């Protein structure tokens, strides 16, 4: 008997140990996946924050620029920089034939003339002089310099010619190639050229969408939640509404996209591809999340507080507004932020309402066409060019950072404003 008991006890201890082990290994697995994911993203993405520049001597020849004597600022703006830009590139190899000059031109981005122009506008005294100017290297050379480009492929299978490589290597030897922090990734809108593509338009698009979404979803959801939780009679009809709200939270996001497409664009004729439409569509999606979070935190307010207020002679409305709602706000806010974070990562509905369109301007208002960060990831991931691979990861990093900050914010709100009630 005693021995049996001992065996049983041992068995129980062993079972517990096993269970702990399962738990630990589950956590280990989760952490492992997360680490692999993050490592992959970072290892491919970090290089996107660097940009390769070619330092090319440029002679600001007034004649080639078609500039008069003593030009005004306006004149300089209207001047033709293409020729001196071309000439500067061609000058890299004095013996180049026409084809090779063309190849030389393609070693830098098509922004090269603008970069030269900017230099002159900064310092008008450069006219007639020669100066080393930083020109954005083409995305392929950028990849070559970062070591991401397979140089040993046969020439007809790569986009960088042997000639370009030869000149590039010469420049590298002369120290005329430099890698600097890629500010333009954050300040440029999207572009077909990987070396010039940035997230400014999609970032702003995301911000505008989230703001629109917040401004619509939050008040509507909070009012709906308060009414349902505190005022609505409990009957079949409200039960029915409650079930439907819960169902709404489970509806696939693409359905909301279709709704936006069918109603906002087709019926109300709102401008396509804009954060306004995106935000409205996202707010439909966020609405049930906030309602559920708000109702849950209203429910969590102890009934004793309500009773106390009612017994003091407060009306239902006063009880709700003075006591229940303020107490539920931390939960509601963090629920809202989590809902917004979800909306921030949403792609499918935005694609449907046209926010996938190529936008190479930075939106200044929710009524301007824009992309959004997840859509930008989608667009870039679809692109063939090698230069976009690292951009996708970099964009994911930005999006993740954004989400982490929002979640952190939610946590802080929850901790800071959560009052303890008896």
């Amino acid at each position, binding site marked *: 008997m005693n021995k049996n008991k001992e065996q049983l006890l041992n068995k129980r201890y062993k079972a517990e140990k096993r269970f702990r082990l399962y738990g630990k290994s589950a956590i280990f697995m989760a952490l492992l996946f997360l680490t692999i994911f993050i490592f992959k993203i970072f290892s491919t993405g970090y290089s996107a924050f660097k940009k390769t520049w070619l330092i090319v001597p440029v002679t600001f020849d007034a004649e080639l620029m078609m500039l008069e004597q003593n030009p005004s600022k306006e004149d300089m703006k209207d001047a033709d920089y293409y020729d001196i830009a071309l000439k500067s590139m061609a000058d890299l190899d004095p013996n180049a034939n026409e084809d090779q000059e063309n190849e030389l031109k393609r070693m830098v981005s098509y922004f090269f003339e603008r970069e030269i122009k900017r230099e002159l506008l900064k310092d008008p005294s450069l006219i007639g002089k020669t100066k080393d100017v930083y020109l954005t290297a083409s995305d392929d050379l950028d990849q070559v310099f970062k070591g991401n480009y397979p140089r040993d492929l046969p020439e007809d299978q790569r986009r960088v010619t042997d000639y370009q490589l030869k000149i590039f290597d010469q420049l590298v030897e002369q120290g005329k190639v430099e890698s600097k922090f890629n500010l333009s990734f954050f300040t440029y809108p999207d572009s077909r050229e990987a070396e010039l593509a940035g997230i400014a338009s999609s970032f702003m698009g995301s911000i505008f969408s989230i703001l629109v979404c917040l401004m619509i979803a939050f008040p509507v959801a909070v009012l709906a939640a308060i009414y349902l939780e505190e005022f609505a*009679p*409990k009957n079949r009809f409200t039960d029915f509404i409650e079930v439907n709200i819960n169902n709404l939270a489970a509806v696939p996001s693409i359905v909301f996209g279709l709704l936006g497409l069918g109603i906002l664009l087709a019926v109300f004729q709102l401008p396509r591809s804009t954060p306004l439409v995106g935000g409205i569509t996202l707010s439909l999606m966020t609405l049930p999340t906030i309602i559920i979070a708000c109702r849950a935190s209203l429910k969590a307010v*102890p009934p*004793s*507080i*309500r*009773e*106390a*207020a*009612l*017994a*003091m*002679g*407060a*009306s239902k409305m*006063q009880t709700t507004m*003075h*006591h229940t709602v303020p*107490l539920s706000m931390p939960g509601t806010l963090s629920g809202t932020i989590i809902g917004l974070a979800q909306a921030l990562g949403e792609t499918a509905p935005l694609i449907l309402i046209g926010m996938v369109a190529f936008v190479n301007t930075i939106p200044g208002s929710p009524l301007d066409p824009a992309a959004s960060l997840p859509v930008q990831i989608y667009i870039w991931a679809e692109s063939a060019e090698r230069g976009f691979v690292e951009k996708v990861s970099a964009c994911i990093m930005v999006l993740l950072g954004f989400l982490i900050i929002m979640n952190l914010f939610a946590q802080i709100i929850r901790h800071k404003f959560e*009052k*303890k*009630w*008896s």
Partner: protein
Amino acid sequence: MIKISSKNIDVFYGKKQALFNINLDIEENQVTALIGPSGCGKSTFLRCLNRMNDVIDICRVKGQIMINDFDINDKSCDVVRLREKIGMVFQKPNPFPKTIYENISYGPTIHGMAQSKNEMDEIVETSLKKAALWEEVQDRLHEPGTGLSGGQQQRLCIARAISVKPEVILMDEPCSALDPIATAQIEELIDELKKDHTIIIVTHSMAQAARVSQNTGFFHLGELIEHGSTDKIFKNPENKKTQDYITGRFG
């Protein structure tokens, strides 16, 4: 003097009847204790007196409750005004998660009882003094009320209840969560308060009912079995059920 007179009170929760034909008169400026086993309807009856049962959707109250010759179950009775006249203290201390000052000033604010900051300060002070809490909290009026000890919290709740100068104070097991010292303080307070207020207290402790009340009503299974002066009930109750309950012979 009869302060509250209830006639033929029936209470239903949905289809279930919780109180059966209760007829109970409450004496003015006295403490009336309601005792009885759990689920006997004493709290339900208490909550009829300030219409707190309105909060429960499925609860229906029938019958007459006359306070100052006015039927509070009448349609013309305004619940907000009624609850200004009839304060309530609950089983668990439930101060608002606000400062001590705000806890007291809430009632007078919503009922517009103070015209100025000074007046409000005075109401807060007298309420706290009457609740025998002033000495302990006068230096920390602007600290959260939830930071007080259980007994202090309950006295804060009593102070909050008397801040609007109610005629009647209902207490629903006010000491069940408190230690004996805090309980004694509350009991002493009840004794003081009965000079200005009519008090009805629901309690599970028969000793407490015996200590604090002048009248006692015994409820069982939704019926008022016996009602009379406290010493009579505890020395020589008329009903066998009452005797069995108070001597610990129940069930």
